[in-house]
């Protein structure tokens, strides 16, 4: 059946079986391979994307359930050559090693910062507790999200009213 949704700000559509998972639609049909699969039982968070700005595990959402809605994947985080604060944070604080959990972690982190501009250590750890990382031991992921919070605060101080990641990608080009 036909399915259409907005992905990283652009209208995308495809013809899929009703049983096709959103993660497979993104990876196979749209070739957006930054969204990964680590378990397919909603346990690891490697497949996390934002669905109308909320993090969801795309291995547990059918593509057809995203009909008419707005998706942000890791590929939608940067604005052209400009990395988003969360991406800069992960690089600066060594928040990634193998990189497999990283897209999911960054999207969860970015969405946390939309809701809570200055999260505590505990709030960050709770927010990412649905995402497994096998490499980093989480210390530097927490630091990376704090770093991103700091960058956002600095940018806000310079130009208040900057659009959010999800709003920017939801708005289309």
């Amino acid at each position, binding site marked *: 059946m036909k399915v259409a949704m907005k992905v990283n700000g652009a209208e995308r559509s495809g013809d899929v079986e009703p049983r096709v998972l959103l993660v497979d639609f993104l990876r196979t049909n749209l070739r957006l391979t930054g969204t990964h699969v680590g378990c397919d039982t909603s*346990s690891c968070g490697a497949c996390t994307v934002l669905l109308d700005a909320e993090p969801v595990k795309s291995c547990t959402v059918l593509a057809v359930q995203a009909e008419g809605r707005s998706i942000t*994947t890791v590929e939608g985080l940067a604005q052209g050559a400009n990395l988003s604060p969360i991406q800069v944070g992960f*690089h600066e604080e060594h928040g990634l090693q*193998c990189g*497999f959990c990283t897209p999911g972690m960054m999207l969860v982190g970015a969405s946390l910062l939309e809701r809570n501009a200055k999260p505590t250590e505990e709030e960050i*750890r709770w927010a990412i507790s649905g995402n497994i990382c*096998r490499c980093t031991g989480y210390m530097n992921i927490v630091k990376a999200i704090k770093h991103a919070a700091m960058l956002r605060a600095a940018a806000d101080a310079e130009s208040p009213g900057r659009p959010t990641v999800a709003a920017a990608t939801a708005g289309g080009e």
Partner: protein
Amino acid sequence: MATQTHMHGRIGESIKRKEDGRFIRGKGNYLDDIELPGMLHMAILRSPHAHARIKSVDTAAASGMPGVIAVVTGELMAQHKLAWMPTLSYDTQAVLATDKVRFQGQEVAAVIADTKYQAEDARDAIVVEYDVLPAVTSPQQAKEAGATLIRDDKENQKDNHIYHWEAGDQATTQAAFAKADKVVRLHTFYPRCHPAPLETCGCIADVNGATGKATVYMTSQAPHAIRTVFALVTGLPEQNIRVISPDIGGGFGNKVPVYPGYVVATAASLLIGRPVKWVEDRSENLISTGFARDFHMTGDLALDKNGKMLALRVHLDSDNGAFFADAQPTKFKAGLFHIVTGSYDIPTAHVTADGYYTNKAPGGVAYRCSFRVTEASYLIERLVSNAAIELGMDQAELRMKNFIQPEQFPYRSATGWVYDSGDYPKAMNVALEQLGYAELRKDVGARRQKGEVTGIGVASFTEVVGAGHGADFDILGLRMFDSAELRVHPTGKALLRMGTKSQGQGHETTFAQIVTEELGIPAADVAVEEGDTDTAPYGLGTYASRSTPVAGAATAMVARKLREKARTIAAHLLEAAEEDLEWDTGRFYVKGSPDKAKTIQEIAFAAYTNVPEGMEAGLEGVHYYDPPNMTYPFGTYAVVVDVDKGTGQVKVRRVVAVDDCGVRINPMIVEGQIHGGLAEGYGIAFMQLITFDAEGNCIGSNFMDYLLPTAWETPQFELGETVTPSPHHPLGAKGVGESPTVGSPAAYVNAVIDALSPYGVTNIDMPVTSDKVWAALRAAGVTE
């Protein structure tokens, strides 16, 4: 003298990782991201039983399903002599079962179809009839008289015993035990767990019928060794096999072996003439690929009345699963387990080991571990802490009393290892200081007075990493050297290729920094490539913390070779004698006149445009490094825990980890590795368990049953360091990736046992879950 030029990215500098850019943009290139034209998908049918005879395999319905190109059975593989394959431990393993299935999850048949969904649908339509046999799920059961014979396929196999192996000296050990004032015994089971990298295993086989070239993309930590094994298994000429390891989403030992899926996909691509992709799902990963540990260990430590260690005796029974497929150096049947005397000057030791077949998945891998050193370190560190408790001594003091002393290095251990360097008392002191041990001990005493259950655990591990040297360490006869090829281009930029393969360790940064240090080319100008056997020099791969000790050394050596050639070119350009030139990172200058200089970039250009008469053009080289010895990283970890008497829940209050891995090339990356290993150690100590019921059903076959630590449980880590360079490594580095998984489980468990010691508890097998702690407290009469 000229002052040292500041050069970005030298050894010791925490530069940001060069590889990050693609990963944070979602542009990594992992196996499953690769799509080839005309590619088909494969799904594997696995056995639901742990032990059963196959009566029939009916593929008729599956073959007729939409999109299905082929259904492959064991019988078909047998026609091509590929139903069985050799293992890394000189045994055989079924590729697709023909006679019996020997563990739950064993490969029985495979479907190749246009899409993944179609392949899985058809897989579910294959009908297999089984005659179920009794399952053997432990070495204890395996050795019982009359136990079902698992390997009836092997002609001379009459029981389930695989190997007996010994190290050390039985007679002197016995004599020492006879004279001991005190013998402390610990019987403990290091249970089966699984490395579970976040990316599962997989491959894409692409055999070109016209050229005969087989290109296999594979999640492999050791692509060159895999190429050679493939050549031997399939009979294809080795120059026609190209193994490419793309970006790898974590390995931890799980991606060293050759799995049946790789062989089936390659055979299918050969027969069908199109690329075939196989990516296992998480359950397949957990139930069928390389597991870790599963050692039943008994240790006896003999001491005199002052707490001086006299002798160590260890026996272990190893549960190897249905096929002996451990990935380890050929000579050593129980890996490097005989490093079990650890950090202590124990005059004599005797180690015996027996391996057994069971109806469980095969393939013991070194899970973030150098071939069973994790089990060894766990046993000795638990044993020493228990000895302290029994002797009424402080656990740090007992260790201090028995450490190998700095002046004893190089130190020959009772089981024959030659430790390269170490300062164990120093690492211990730094850890105790950082923890505030003396104060905390008092605090523990005070809290216990109030009825709290709290404790401190210490572990002072010694690792043995960086295999070879090649004379003693090999995989299927391949000597465990490693390699680096360095090409400096005319513009002074460089390409470094190695026989290792990063799975997240940051090789693209660390190894570039070695070139910066040795040749003065900024790290940003050095591209590092690994994982393509058609372009990279031959190497044995990345596992057992061997990349920096072996390939890192090869990189330093090849860079030094090029520097010598650069000196000759510089002398020619400066019209000076070679011996009059001084090296200052990145340039040669004439002694006494620092302005008369040529930079490495100028020299590189000249290497292609203006070489001295008679010299070969170019600035390239390759070095194969066979290390003279292993390296021996060490450290002291200390953990503080609080136990809830009501629920048995253990809360880790503090973790202090002092590591000595010799010279640190990129401290940020080293610390990241330590964080990761401490978290995995936490998981192993408290959560991660692969177990089996009496029928051999795997409990722990998904992430809801096999529990991995999340950010919520994982404690904060406080790191410290000492630096004792390796005397034989060109940079003094030792390797670090595994120290924290080797050292920390004992520290975590020792803390719990310390907390429970007032109640007479001396052992709880890992994972130390709340229910076990609760039961131990109740058994000791603790209520509340």
